């Protein structure tokens, strides 16, 4: 879609600049005159929202690092000093902590958007893969950031997650010790997590630049999944999508501000207001909400699979659940991008979204808790459908969606008739 540049420098300075470093031309072609499908809906605004939140996180994070002390015996107190004594520290800390959650909400919506509208299909495979890389980096950054306050949940969350590495055969213990820099989560771990938590956002920013580059070669996908064919199918990015994205960003910021100012701690965990104590484990270790589905998949594997024991099996399943996204463009055999024209697969997609949410629910619960009770056993203890079984069911569906539904449905489903072009779609059908 990125055709020949239409930029014409008008002043002496811009002409001079254009012959030396055509950065104004780049900006103009990418964000002003960039031809964008005219039918993008609000689900397409989350890319812009994510860019804003990356900036919010980096700026607030740099500021927090000016006051934070990455030391076992001072980290917790330094965070309280930020909240209590540093000017506007309470605000900046709340923005950063809640910002992480809002970043993940946006990235999940962005990803489900991509899944629904087939944004991963040719010629956008690299664009999709770069997105998965960003998501992985976000997971790592968020995990290490949650360790820094050095509260109980920070410490024990770090303990549980790093112990997963120990499940790897032969090299697990060595890698875990290397990661810890000691025999347990401790000062060395805290220092390196702080260093990496500072570094990774800039790596994310670099991959985001590649992501946008990869976006601007084929151009945006769109809800009908048909590539623009003529100028009538597109609009210049500015002012049409700057204003639309801008409006969406402000609405999202309203929700964000409501949390930052009025519910600053509801997305966190009470136990993280207790300083880390290696001698006492919280009753119920839960990761941040955005990891819960994967935590549920991890705990769903309670059985040995051949030579693989349950613990390693859980780790493989958890990482597999993310890594499978890398090969998604080649798993989906359908030539039709948008689920709008795939009535049966769309039902499977809805179930997939519900399965992800259900896995999140399972991740927050004790595996032995009951989803619903059926009766009582001989000792009067309630029996019923356990969360771990529910998680196993949903884990199966999670993988089945990628490994069975998408490959098979692409071959057997007869898609609905599609409009000839975006223009025809816009003008031809009344909106519901």
């Amino acid at each position, binding site marked *: 879609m990125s055709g020949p540049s239409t930029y014409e420098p008008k002043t002496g300075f811009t002409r001079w600049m254009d012959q030396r470093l055509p950065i104004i031309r780049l900006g103009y072609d990418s964000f002003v005159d960039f031809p964008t499908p*005219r*039918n*993008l*809906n*609000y*689900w397409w605004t989350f890319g812009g929202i994510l860019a804003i939140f990356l900036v919010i996180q980096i700026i607030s994070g740099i500021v927090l690092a000016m006051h934070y002390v990455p030391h076992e015996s001072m980290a917790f*107190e330094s965070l*309280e000093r930020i*909240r*209590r004594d540093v000017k506007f520290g*309470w*605000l900046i800390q*709340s923005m950063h902590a809640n910002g992480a959650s809002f970043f993940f909400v946006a990235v999940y*919506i962005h990803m*489900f*958007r991509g899944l*629904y509208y087939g944004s991963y299909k040719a010629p956008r495979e690299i664009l999709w893969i770069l997105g998965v890389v960003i998501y992985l980096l976000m997971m790592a950054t968020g995990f290490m950031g949650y360790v820094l306050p050095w509260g109980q949940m920070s410490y024990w969350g770090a303990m549980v997650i790093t112990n997963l590495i120990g499940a790897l055969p032969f090299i697990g213990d060595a890698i875990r010790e290397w990661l810890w820099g000691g025999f347990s989560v401790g000062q060395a771990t805290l220092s390196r997590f702080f260093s990496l938590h500072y570094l990774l956002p800039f790596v994310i920013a670099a991959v985001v630049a590649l992501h946008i580059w990869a976006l601007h070669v084929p151009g945006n996908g769109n809800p009908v999944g048909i590539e623009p064919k003529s100028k009538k199918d597109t*609009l210049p990015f500015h*002012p*049409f999508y700057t*204003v*639309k994205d*801008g*409006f969406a960003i*402000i*609405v999202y*910021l*309203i929700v964000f*501000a*409501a949390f*930052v*100012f*009025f519910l*600053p*701690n509801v997305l966190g965990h*009470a*136990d993280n*207001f*207790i300083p880390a104590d290696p001698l006492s484990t919280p*009753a*119920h270790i839960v990761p941040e909400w955005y990891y819960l589905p994967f935590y549920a998949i991890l705990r769903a594997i309670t059985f040995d699979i051949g030579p693989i024991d349950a613990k390693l099996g859980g780790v493989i399943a958890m990482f597999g659940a993310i890594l499978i996204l890398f090969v998604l463009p080649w798993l989906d055999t359908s030539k039709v991008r948008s*689920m*709008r024209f795939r009535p049966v697969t*769309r039902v499977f997609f*809805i179930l997939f*979204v*519900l399965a992800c*949410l*259900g896995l*999140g*629910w399972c991740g*927050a*619960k*004790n595996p032995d*808790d009951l989803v619903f009770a059926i009766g009582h056993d001989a000792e009067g203890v309630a029996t019923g459908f356990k969360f771990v079984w529910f998680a196993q069911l949903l884990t199966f569906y999670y993988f089945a969606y990628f490994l069975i539904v998408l490959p098979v449905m692409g071959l057997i489903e007869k898609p609905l008739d599609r409009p000839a072009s975006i223009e025809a779609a*816009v*003008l031809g059908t009344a909106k*519901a």
Partner: protein
Amino acid sequence: MKMTRIFVAALAALGLSGLAWAASSGQRAPEHHHWHNAGPFGTFDREAVQRGLQIYQEVCASCHSLDLIKFRNLGETGGPFESAEFPNANDNPIVMQIAAGYMIEDGPDDAGDMFERPGLPSDAFPSPFANPQQARGSNGGALPPDLSLIVKARSHGADYVRSLLLGYDEEVPEDVHVAAGQHYNPYFPGGLLAMASPLSEGIVTYSDGTEATMEQMSEDIVTFLTWAADPHMEARKQMGVMVLLYLFIFAILVYIAYRQIWANVKH
């Protein structure tokens, strides 16, 4: 739009799962209480915070530390002794007087010895015990937690602490065995804790003449502890109202601009 409906349903499901999560675990759910500082416009009842401070000093402080609270905090914006006359809390005579009532270890002096001096506004409330080991040793092995963040560090913080303080009168169920040095309280996880009921009718004599009932004292001390955990709450809410107001107006302006720009474009 199909996809919109899917996401709305999904978000609703997410909200429900959050609620279900909060309801788990064996202890009795804390009783809900209406707090003066609740809601987006709620402010601290200054007099309740002052009375709560008195309870902390006279009752809780014999076992529980309050490490994160400095005396100056009492006179800072949002604090119980905030005063327009003394914008610098260090000069607030009430703060100075409260601080001077404590002896603080300082030093070493020129001879290398530690010494005690009267507290200054910049000092924190001194801990009743020198270290956690001493605290455990003096309390039958149980460590009295620091109270600075107790309201944030428990789920349903304020309601939980209030329910716990009022929950000692309950009949011990038959299947619960209360060992020596333990006390039954249905609001505590597991039902048994080392702390005996810290409050009793009239255990403090309020300097402002308020009657020291159990209800009154529980509300006051929890209000004080809520302030201690979140001293900038009022500033936070005030700024929040302004920010939301601004964002709403900004959103309306941008929406009008959006409608104008897209007015003649079918999409």
